């Protein structure tokens, strides 16, 4: 008789993760494309101030990786939505899986993608400055960044991208639960932008912004983001756990 094999969850998740890195290689090539476009936008400088007298003109431009990071966050959101769509879910079910391992390996994949996105977008900040110096002939006054700050910058950027992907992952999963969410979610988001903005001196959008973006303690920021993403990924996982596949 053919002996039955017991399945170890960690081993299956690891194999699925490696499989996904290989299978979703297109996501990484689109990351490069998106960051190149963002770099072109960044070349003009983020902020510009100038003064002039009859003898001279002074223009100060500040360069940063902000646009690249914003684009990369959108990329993270879209990538997360993509891997919740039916064909991507079904890739797992061709081989050994259950819904939990499928979700865990998806989260691992998104964490990897976010780290890669974080590293490349922070480093692209240097690329913008160098490009401005060499190709546009700007004189560069760079504020030096210590290695520690660089690492914190990379982690923070990765966390923002991961948050975007966890939001995308939940949206994608909701869209699989019911197609109605494809219309409802964008409608709610657009509505949310205009919500209460004229009546309330401290609208909810501003509070959210302050909660996530204006946080001086790195540890607190880390905890906030990790909790948020855990809740979003967890909700998606619970939703997907009851769903049929390949039907």
């Amino acid at each position: 008789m053919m002996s039955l094999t017991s399945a170890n969850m960690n081993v299956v998740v690891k194999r699925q993760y490696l499989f996904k890195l290989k299978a979703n290689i297109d996501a990484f090539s689109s990351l490069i494309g998106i960051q190149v476009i963002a770099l072109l936008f960044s070349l003009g400088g983020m902020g510009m101030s100038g003064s002039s007298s009859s003898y001279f003109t002074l223009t100060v431009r500040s360069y940063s990786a902000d646009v690249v990071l914003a684009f990369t966050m959108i990329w993270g959101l879209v990538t997360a939505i993509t891997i919740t769509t039916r064909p991507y879910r079904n890739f797992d079910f061709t081989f050994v899986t259950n819904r939990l391992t499928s979700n865990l390996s998806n989260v691992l994949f998104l964490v990897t993608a976010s780290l890669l996105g974080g590293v490349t977008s922070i480093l692209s900040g240097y690329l913008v400055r160098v490009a401005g110096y060499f190709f546009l002939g700007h004189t560069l006054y760079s504020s030096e960044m210590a290695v520690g700050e660089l690492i914190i910058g990379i982690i923070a950027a990765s966390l923002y991208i991961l948050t975007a992907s966890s939001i995308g992952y939940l949206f994608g999963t909701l869209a699989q639960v019911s197609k109605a969410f494809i219309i409802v979610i964008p409608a709610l988001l657009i509505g949310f932008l205009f919500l209460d903005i004229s009546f309330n001196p401290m609208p909810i959008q501003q509070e959210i912004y302050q909660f996530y973006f204006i946080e001086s303690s790195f540890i607190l920021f880390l905890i906030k983001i990790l909790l948020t993403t855990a809740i979003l990924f967890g909700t998606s996982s619970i939703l997907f756990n009851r769903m049929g596949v390949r039907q």
Partner: protein
Amino acid sequence: MKVIECTGLTKTYLRKPVLNNLTFSIEENTITGLIGRNGAGKTTLLKILAGFIQETSGKVRVFDDGPFNSLFVSANSIFVDDQMIFPPALQLQEILEVAGSFYPNWDMKLAKGLAKYFDFDPKNYHNRLSKGKTSTFNSIIGLAARCPLTILDEPTTGMDEAVRKDFYRALLKDYLAHPRTIMISSHHLNEIEDLLEDVLLIKDGKKHLHLPISELKEWAIGIKGPTEKVLELTNGEELIYENRIGAGTMYAVVKNNFATLEIEKAGLERTPVRASDLCVYLTNDSRGGIDDVFNQC
């Protein structure tokens, strides 16, 4: 040991029952043919067994475990059909490698051998394959995975005659060398009847028959002769199929409850009924055939 046990299995979609109170069990190391008309619920049943979809009510046990969300069932079973989907970024040889990393009993030598025999370019991509080639490739994965439960849902869709024959032969050879439990659904019972040990016939989501193929071949007989004599002999018996041939002659299929002598005494002709024909007769909704549609027009 029973590999599959279903008790009162029911699946409804939008209140319409697709599987209706299905109770059966499948023994270890058998090849069972799942036979039924289009829409009888074959694929739904197989997908429930594979853990893809959840039953509405009733009990399903595969390897003594509920298949839905069971990693254990998933590791020990494979579901093959023409809808199997692989990442478009992977070449065929990479797909074989990935499959090998997931399935512990995977036989790479067999997989590569079959892929070579069926003329697959290892650098080709799965989504560029033709319909028949797709089915062939998926079947290679199903065979080489050597899962204790191998589920083949219409594995020969689109395959040409030669490939179908080769595939059945490969399936039988590999089964004999590495016995496992195989469930195969097909419309071509006559092609696979030499392969099968058991037949599970379902009709409208209900179990109609579940018996060894040898018994199915003996299950019914055909009686041919003058109409009155046939009707007289089969009086009270349910006619599984009747066909009036010309004037006054009739062919009827009934359950095999008649002694040959009795039939010969009445001057009638007794013929065996092929298993595939019998399945068509048993699953027909109405006594009449497609001709009636045109006759009414």
